[in-house]
């Protein structure tokens, strides 16, 4: 549905996007993840035709955004980082204007707008001036604008930024629902938001794709080395030495102590079976293991490990992790 090939954007000497390529299949929800200034918005602005690329191309459903801008734009609903709202209009007037812009037939307009107002839950403010609305409502009106004309591709730049937790859940649910029928690209620097809705994550850092995969695969791929949290009752020094004596256990840290209960975190490449040995070793020393649990790398940790010193990596990024 979306094919981005070798996209490069330079402002003078500064390269904001560097040879970025990816595909998005029909019906897929793809999340752009990256720190502020990584190039997420630039990529979206190029795909939607707001700015043009220095090199490379973006195709929407086979239509090149630079060569057939009108055809490509017909297929895209775009919510930029700051919703593009006319504050002097009421919500309904604004949506009617967007219908006119996107050439929605006059006869279908009312039903179409009613449906979208229902989807994004803004019926209680539809006759209020946009300038008087709260940030959360403005965001939703912007989202409504992106949905006008029923485009098959929806591109959302930081759709939940500045919203309260309840509004975030609302918007997330709307995006999930959209993903059932549409191709969606959304960006965020908030990781939980991406992992909650996206089928695939593209991590962008310093204008390059650092890595891409499904949220689950990313965790599997990057989380080969498990962190284990272990709480043990007994002498702290003895327990620490015992842990360190195992091959394949490293970075042992005591994270907290409460009486004779001590919690440790360490990294291990031992399989679950091998880790039974840890249990018996402690039992032999007459020290009780109170708990032992895997701490998988969260998307946040993956994100940090991929983006830290991101300038060094070429494309895979895995080598740095």
């Amino acid at each position, binding site marked *: 549905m979306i094919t981005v090939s070798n996209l490069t954007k330079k402002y003078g000497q500064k390269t904001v996007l560097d040879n970025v390529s990816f595909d998005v299949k029909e019906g897929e929800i793809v999340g752009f993840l990256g720190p502020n200034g990584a190039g997420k918005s630039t990529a979206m602005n190029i795909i939607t035709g*707001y*700015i*043009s690329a*220095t090199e490379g191309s973006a195709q929407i459903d086979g239509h090149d955004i630079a060569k057939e801008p*009108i055809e490509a734009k017909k297929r*895209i609903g775009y919510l930029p980082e700051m919703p593009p*709202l006319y504050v*002097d209009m009421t919500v309904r007037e604004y949506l009617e204007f967007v219908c*006119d812009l*996107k050439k929605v037939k006059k006869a279908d307009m009312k039903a179409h707008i009613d449906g979208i107002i229902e989807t994004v839950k803004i019926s209680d403010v539809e006759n209020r001036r946009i300038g008087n609305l709260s940030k959360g409502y403005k965001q939703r009106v912007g989202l409504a604008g992106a949905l006008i004309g029923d485009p098959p591709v929806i591109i959302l730049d930081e759709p939940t930024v500045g919203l309260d937790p309840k509004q975030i859940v609302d918007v997330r649910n709307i995006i999930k629902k959209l993903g059932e029928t549409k191709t969606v690209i959304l960006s965020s620097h908030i990781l939980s938001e991406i992992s909650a809705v996206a089928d695939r994550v593209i991590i962008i850092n310093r204008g390059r794709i650092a890595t891409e995969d499904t949220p689950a695969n990313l965790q599997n791929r990057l989380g080969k080395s498990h962190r284990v949290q272990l709480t043990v009752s007994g002498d702290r020094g003895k327990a620490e030495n015992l842990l360190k004596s195992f091959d394949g256990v490293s970075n042992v840290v005591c994270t907290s102590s409460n009486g004779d209960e001590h919690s440790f975190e360490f990294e291990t490449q031992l399989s679950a079976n091998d880790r039974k040995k840890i249990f018996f070793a402690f039992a032999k020393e007459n020290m009780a293991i109170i708990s032992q649990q895997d701490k998988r790398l969260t998307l946040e940790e993956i994100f940090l490990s991929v983006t830290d010193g991101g300038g060094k990596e070429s494309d895979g990024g895995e080598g740095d992790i």
Partner: protein
Amino acid sequence: MKAIFKRELNAYFTSALGYAYLFLFLVFTGLVFYFTSIQTGLSSLTTYFTVTAYLSPLLLPLLTVRIFSEDRKLKTDQLLLTAPVSTTGVVLGKFLAAFAMFGIGLAVTIIYPLIQSRYGAVPVAETVCAYIGFILFAALILAVGAFMSSLTENQITAAAATYVVVCAVIAAVFAVNIIPNETIVNIALWLSPINRFLNLLHGRFNINDAVYLASVAGLFLFLTVETFEKRRLG
């Protein structure tokens, strides 16, 4: 284009700007008409047109200062430039809305020649010619204003830049008295739209003048479109 035209025209009336413009334009032309025709008892509208011609360009930038600069400030340009509308469509839609506002004001002033015609013969051809001149000259000033508005997100800067151009255009007609070199004077007068405008205003219809004014307006609209295309390239 139609959608943008409609929204922009409506926007003049949801803010004070449209009313302020119409109020000033009508009060101003009304006063000029009163002092040049009714009070003096002259049957000719020549003086009325001349005074209006020099002063009304000062009101026209009111209609254009915000048309593009505000979009950049509010980021609504992202809506317009990612919608399935050509850049030319966006520029023309906004320009035509400003032009329509001018047209609304101008349409009301038709009342003055009509009043005049009750007290004496108003030369119809000359008056129509004057109106054509007025319309073309306004198109030119509005196109310059639109271009200036596209260059900046600051409305004050856009207004100031437009006034500089408008004043330079008007000043060219007085250049004759200051510049000693005849060649420079002739070039300045040929380039300045004001003399061509005055020709039309005084009922001397010349197709060259009309084409010249329309072309300069077109040129500035073209430059406005190019400004957007260039910004897209970054």
